[in-house]
């Protein structure tokens, strides 16, 4: 479903601040793969997701989504394949617009926008149905401005928007990291529910070691722009969090257990 071949991305090339964010990275995802990505700060996790989404061009390498080369397509064109949820809950929704307007924009991902009325009464029924799946009571607040919602509500809404038209690839960039623990769990449960229902191919960046081993079917560890560990079903089951942290230390020579990760456990 997703094939990355020899991706390379350097920020500030040629200057003393040059930083190799992706270093000849390759990765193959089968349809329905749900991959958790872990790694220290600056390992290139977000750069990887942004490169796939097309936020910036890569220096070298191929990005193939469902058999189609997309590395030369602009971000908005790739959007027809990709659903995204960002770390910042403010990033994924338009605050000054209503819940139904936000959903109406999401439902048009990947298709042409015309001079047609964006929201019909049928749409409203559909939106209410979908919102009720979130279990947050948003189905009764279709005409509420999104700016009035809490971070967790906005993130759940963003998740719904990213998957309203099932994408070929779902990119989640630490999408629960800035939520309080209770809300984070709700959004995470929703994520699993939606992904398994639609059988979405998913890449999820996380800082939570426990989640990284228990969610999805594959765990990838990144370091200095490369994948240094790739665990699938069986290996993953036998792996403990301590093992994982040790492996990281052995592979990279750096201890990954920073405060944030310990707290996340």
């Amino acid at each position, binding site marked *: 479903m997703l094939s990355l071949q020899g991706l390379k991305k350097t920020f500030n090339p040629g200057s003393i601040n040059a930083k190799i964010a992706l270093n000849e990275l390759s990765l193959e995802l089968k349809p329905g793969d749900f991959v958790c990505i872990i790694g220290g700060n600056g390992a290139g996790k977000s750069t990887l997701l942004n490169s796939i*989404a097309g936020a910036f061009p890569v220096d070298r390498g191929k990005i193939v989504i469902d058999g189609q080369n997309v590395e030369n397509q*602009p*971000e*908005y*064109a790739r*959007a*027809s394949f*990709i659903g*995204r949820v*960002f770390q910042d809950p*403010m*990033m*994924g*929704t*338009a*605050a*000054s*617009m209503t819940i139904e*307007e936000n959903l*109406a*924009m*999401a439902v*048009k*991902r*990947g*298709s042409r*926008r*015309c*001079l*047609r*009325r*964006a*929201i019909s009464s049928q749409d409203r029924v559909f939106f209410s149905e979908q919102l009720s799946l979130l279990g947050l009571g948003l189905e009764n607040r279709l005409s509420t401005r999104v700016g009035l919602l809490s971070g967790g509500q906005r993130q759940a809404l963003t998740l719904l*928007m990213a998957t309203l038209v099932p994408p070929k690839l779902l990119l989640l960039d630490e999408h629960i990291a800035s939520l309080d623990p209770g809300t984070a769990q709700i959004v995470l449960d929703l994520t699993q529910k939606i992904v398994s229902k639609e059988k979405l191919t998913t890449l999820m960046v996380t800082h939570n070691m426990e989640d990284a081993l228990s969610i999805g079917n594959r765990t990838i560890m990144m370091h200095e722009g490369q994948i240094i560990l790739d665990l699938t079903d069986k290996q993953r089951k036998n792996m403990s969090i301590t093992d994982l942290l040790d492996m990281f230390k052995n592979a990279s020579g750096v201890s990954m257990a920073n405060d944030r990760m310990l707290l996340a456990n």
Partner: protein
Amino acid sequence: MINLTASIWVGALEQGLLYGVMVLGVYITFRVLDFPDLTVDGSFTLGGAVAARLIYSGYSPWLATFMGLAAGLIAGLCTGLLHTKVRIAPLLAGILMMIALYSINLRVMGGKSMLSLLRIDTVFTDITLLGIPKQLVVITLGLAFIIVICYLMFVFLQTEVGLALRATGDNEQMIRSLGVNTHYSKVVGLSLGNGLVGLSGALVAQYQSFSDAGMGIGMIVVGLASVIMGEVVIGNKTLRRTLIAVVIGSIIYRIVITFVMRIGLPATDLKLFTAVLVILAMAMPIVKEKLPAGKASER
């Protein structure tokens, strides 16, 4: 005496409506797109110049008015392309167009800095022939334009393209990740906004019976003042309300201007007054935060 005073306030209402078309344009660029577009100063004059020149040359005033709109549209298109294709920052792109338009406007008016339309038929004299009383001609036509434009904007901003336009001003990253080419929506928004500004210029030139090269100076600030005052007085909870607020804001602005001129402020000080008005409106939230110290700390 009473009649004289009344006619002054009628004048304020007339101007409020005709300039209101410009304010609706500024609302599109400044509020909807969140693009501080200084092209407005040039495209307002351009609309007036194009209309005046065409009417002067004997074309139908209706065609001339429409061409004023088209000219503004093209000016906005250029600003949009400067910003999206040449990647010039919004403010600078607007300033460049504004300066370029200054020369273009003089050319349009045949090298003269002023073009008189005295004793030439305009859209306003045209509809007097329909039997509308002379005193009500401008208000009728102004109101008709405002209602039609507000209605079209209300419908447009709720279409699929309209939502994309609003989202471009609200959260560019988000709407791009939903598949919208934000460069395109910016160009569309700037074109439409400046189209309305050009139309307003065309109407104002006919209303005052002349166009001059300086008629657009400070227009962006007038537009801002009107948008802000309207939103403060009427509110911006819903799209419908905001559109009405913008028009009312334009009328309030003209009434305020009329009032300060009545109490003796020379006309040459009007631009200073307008700038101060905008600064005060912008400073309001900060002043509110600082003045009642008790209330602020409670929050």
